[in-house]
């Protein structure tokens, strides 16, 4: 089952993966973005991390769509609050690496099917409940059982027992649970208070990297009450437990921050967080508290930032795209994000298979003037792609051998196209399909224009009324043209940008690309200890993609935001949200 779709997703993780400073320097080549190279990231680095301040930082937020229960939070505004309230097993650090948070270690067995988790000792929730194996096991069991109707249930699919316990729902989605049903994941086993094992449904070498998502946060014992709407007991006679709805209103976590008292969540207005006294993990707050202001209108967000009411925003209204860099100066942020855009040419199309296809793909890629399109169509809020992932991923390289194919070179393009013509003469129109319910028309036209001018072939856009309609034709393999594709990873790893899209049989491999060498390099990469070591293999795998171009990379969407003069050390996570606990603000 594919969990991912091909456009910007709202369901995003709000963990904190920082921007590698080096990557920041390399990636700002796109238009006006280039001026921000030494923006807050670099400036903040100079002011030195480790500075602890007392000011309360106000950040742009929005009313969470659901009560603050981690397994039921699948949208950005709730997630960015929970990342501060809870500490999961791991977190994503400022360099894009996965680091231990509540876990002391997560050790895989030889074939990556069982992971042994050891928790740090002495941790408690803010109400004094211990953070132990049970707080994770209970929370995960609660989230995974579909009878509990949690929006993040699917995140537990990789764990053994998910399929079995939810089989009745699979058979009949209106199934009513009854006594004796299995309501827990058989893959979760408590060893003792601080140790538990996770058995996977199948080998998952990079499982720990997934675990920074809020769905995997622990819950205190006090959060659970007997489920009265579905009052069933399992085979052992234990009643089905659920999370008290009142808990989601005033959640008690184990993270670096806690709510500033009962009712700190003022609906539709703001939420106030203060540093937690019980948290002794690696994410020590650098400030005296956080206030997320819930503002709907982006224009209003921007006015608040200019007036100094807001310290950090991760979005700038389109109306300010041309002025915000002069308004904010070095406090403006315009850096490549994680939303990768491309177009895919299935090799089953005439003229696009074998040697001829490879030449034509390269010619098309050389014929696209990405830099100019980023600058003119997008006002510099896109960064031309240098690889198949995002510059925010740990181990990202802008210098993958062969990536000159992603630069504009009309001469080379004409040459390659002529070579392809020598194999079989081109005829017809080159089309790119897109969905008209979103603003893709402009850039598709621009890309096609660029191709038309360089190669002199006929080009035309093909419009589908809705995203749904286009995806149906794509998944049924009925589409007879090239089509736009986009991707945002579920967790910060280059692997997630490659395997599902270009791996043999990948869930979103819309072009049916298959290359054994590529697959092998990915598998090898998964087995490495650190993200950087893995990336060596992933980038080798990308060298193959640069030649064969199963999709033609275009650009990545930028993080467009800014901060006020009162704050420093503003770093941006892989989820394009500022890492709140690192922000420094003198009182």
């Amino acid at each position, binding site marked *: *089952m*594919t*969990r*991912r*779709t091909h*456009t*910007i*997703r*709202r*369901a995003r993780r709000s963990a904190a993966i920082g921007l590698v400073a080096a990557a920041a320097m390399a990636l700002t080549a796109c238009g006006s973005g280039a001026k921000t190279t030494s923006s807050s990231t670099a400036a903040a680095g100079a002011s030195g991390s480790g500075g602890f301040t007392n000011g309360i930082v106000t950040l742009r937020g929005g*009313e*969470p*769509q*659901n*009560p603050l229960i981690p397994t039921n939070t*699948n*949208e950005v505004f709730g997630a960015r609050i929970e990342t501060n309230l809870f500490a999961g097993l791991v977190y994503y650090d400022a360099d894009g690496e996965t680091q231990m948070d509540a876990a002391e270690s997560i050790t895989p067995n030889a074939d990556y099917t069982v992971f042994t988790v050891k928790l740090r000792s002495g941790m408690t929730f803010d109400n004094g409940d211990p953070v132990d194996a049970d707080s994770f096991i209970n929370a995960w069991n609660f989230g995974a059982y*579909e*009878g509990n*109707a*949690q*929006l993040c*249930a*699917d995140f537990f699919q990789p764990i053994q027992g998910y399929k079995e316990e*939810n089989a009745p*729902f*699979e058979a009949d*989605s*209106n*199934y009513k649970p009854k006594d004796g049903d299995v309501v827990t994941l058989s893959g979760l086993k408590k060893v003792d208070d601080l140790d538990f094992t996770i058995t996977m449904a199948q080998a998952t070498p990079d499982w720990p990297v997934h675990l920074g998502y809020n769905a995997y946060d622990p819950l205190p014992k006090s959060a659970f009450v007997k489920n009265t709407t579905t009052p069933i007991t399992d085979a052992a006679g234990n009643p089905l437990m659920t999370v008290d*709805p009142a808990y*989601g209103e005033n959640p008690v976590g184990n993270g670096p921050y806690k709510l500033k008292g009962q009712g700190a969540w*003022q*609906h*539709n*207005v*703001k939420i106030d967080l203060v540093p937690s006294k019980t948290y002794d993990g690696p994410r020590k707050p650098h400030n005296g508290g956080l206030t997320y*202001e819930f*503002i*709907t*209108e982006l*224009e*209003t967000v921007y*006015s*608040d930032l*200019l*007036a100094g*009411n807001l310290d950090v925003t991760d979005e700038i209204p389109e109306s300010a795209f041309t002025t915000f860099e002069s308004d904010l100066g070095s406090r403006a942020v315009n850096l490549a994000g994680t939303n990768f855009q491309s177009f895919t040419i299935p090799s089953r199309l005439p003229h696009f298979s074998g040697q001829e296809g490879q030449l034509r793909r390269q010619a098309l890629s050389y014929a696209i003037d990405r830099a100019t399109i980023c600058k003119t169509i997008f006002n510099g809020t896109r960064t031309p792609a240098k690889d198949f992932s995002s510059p925010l991923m740990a181990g990202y390289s802008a210098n993958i051998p062969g990536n000159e194919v992603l630069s504009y070179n009309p001469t080379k393009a004409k040459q390659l196209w002529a070579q392809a013509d020598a194999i079989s003469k081109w005829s017809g129109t080159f089309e790119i399909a897109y969905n008209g319910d979103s603003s893709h028309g402009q850039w598709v036209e621009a890309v096609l224009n660029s191709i038309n001018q360089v190669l002199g072939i006929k080009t035309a856009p093909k419009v589908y009324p809705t995203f749904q309609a286009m995806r149906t034709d794509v998944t049924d393999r009925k589409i007879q043209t090239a089509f736009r594709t986009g991707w945002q990873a579920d967790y910060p790893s280059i692997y997630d940008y490659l395997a599902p899209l270009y791996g043999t049989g990948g869930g979103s491999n819309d072009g049916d690309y298959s290359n054994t060498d590529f697959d092998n390099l990915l598998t090898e990469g998964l087995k490495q200890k650190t993200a950087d070591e893995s990336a060596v293999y992933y980038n080798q795998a990308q060298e193959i993609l640069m030649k064969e171009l199963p999709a033609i990379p275009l650009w990545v969407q930028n993080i467009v935001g800014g901060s006020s003069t009162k704050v420093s050390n503003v770093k941006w996570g892989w989820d394009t949200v500022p890492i709140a606990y690192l922000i420094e603000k003198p009182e």
Partner: protein
Amino acid sequence: MGWYIGRRLLQMIPVFLGATLLVYAMVFLLPGDPIVAMFGERQVNAAVANQLRAQYHLDKPFIIQYLLYLKGVVTGNFGMSYSGRPVSQIVAQAYPVTVKLAVMALCIEAIFGVVLGVIAGLRRGGWFDSTALVLSMLLIAVPTFVMGFVLQTLLGIKLQWLPVTVGGEVSVKSLLMPAFVLAGVSMAYVLRLTRNSVAEVSTADYVRTATAKGLSRHTVVTKHILRNSLIPVVTFLGADLGNLMGGAIVTEGIFNVPGVGNALYQAILKSEGSTVVSLVTILVLVFIIANLVVDLLYAALDPRIRLV
């Protein structure tokens, strides 16, 4: 008079039923599935989705959904929002803010509109009248959001006289700018209306008689001109209170006011039937009561009008 008020209040029952049914139907007809939307662009988990549908009665036919909502209302339960908050809480939080904003706006438009209108009406054709005409045309012509952003930039960001946004600090000071923006267009109408009404009444026979009797200018203006010329203005102001409350969506967005407009906008985006209906129904009731008060004021201003 008592019978009249009682009858008017009784009329509210069919209006309430009609309004709720209509609004509920409109929300029901909104395109898109709110439960599917809750999954963002992730794959929808069918079992989870079905349980949520059952929880919010979305699995039932329209008329049953509506009757269940009505049953809830009668028993004091306005339902739950998709985020698990009781709708009554959302209403209780949003209304006081919007009422404050609307009353402030009403005062601004009444005071400025009437005073300037009277002056313009009494000195018609003069420079004041012409300036007031141009200004009111400007207010009517410039869209609310333009005025909102201009004032926000000027008074809030550049001069820093007033808070840029309201947010959690709902006070007279923070609401001043949004109230002014909200009042803008209506203020221009009140000004025009008062000016024309005063101008018309000023030439009436009884005003000439009053002046001929040797009454002072002051008495003529306050007792004879004003009292008679304000009847259409009062009607307008009364009807406008409802407009101000319901029409604050744009203004509340610009100034981030946590009021009805904001709550309504959010609820419509999520196709939350019970929240939208509850918020709108109260607006309808406010409209009806405001109209009743206007009718009562009529009688007070003009004894010739009998309420039967």
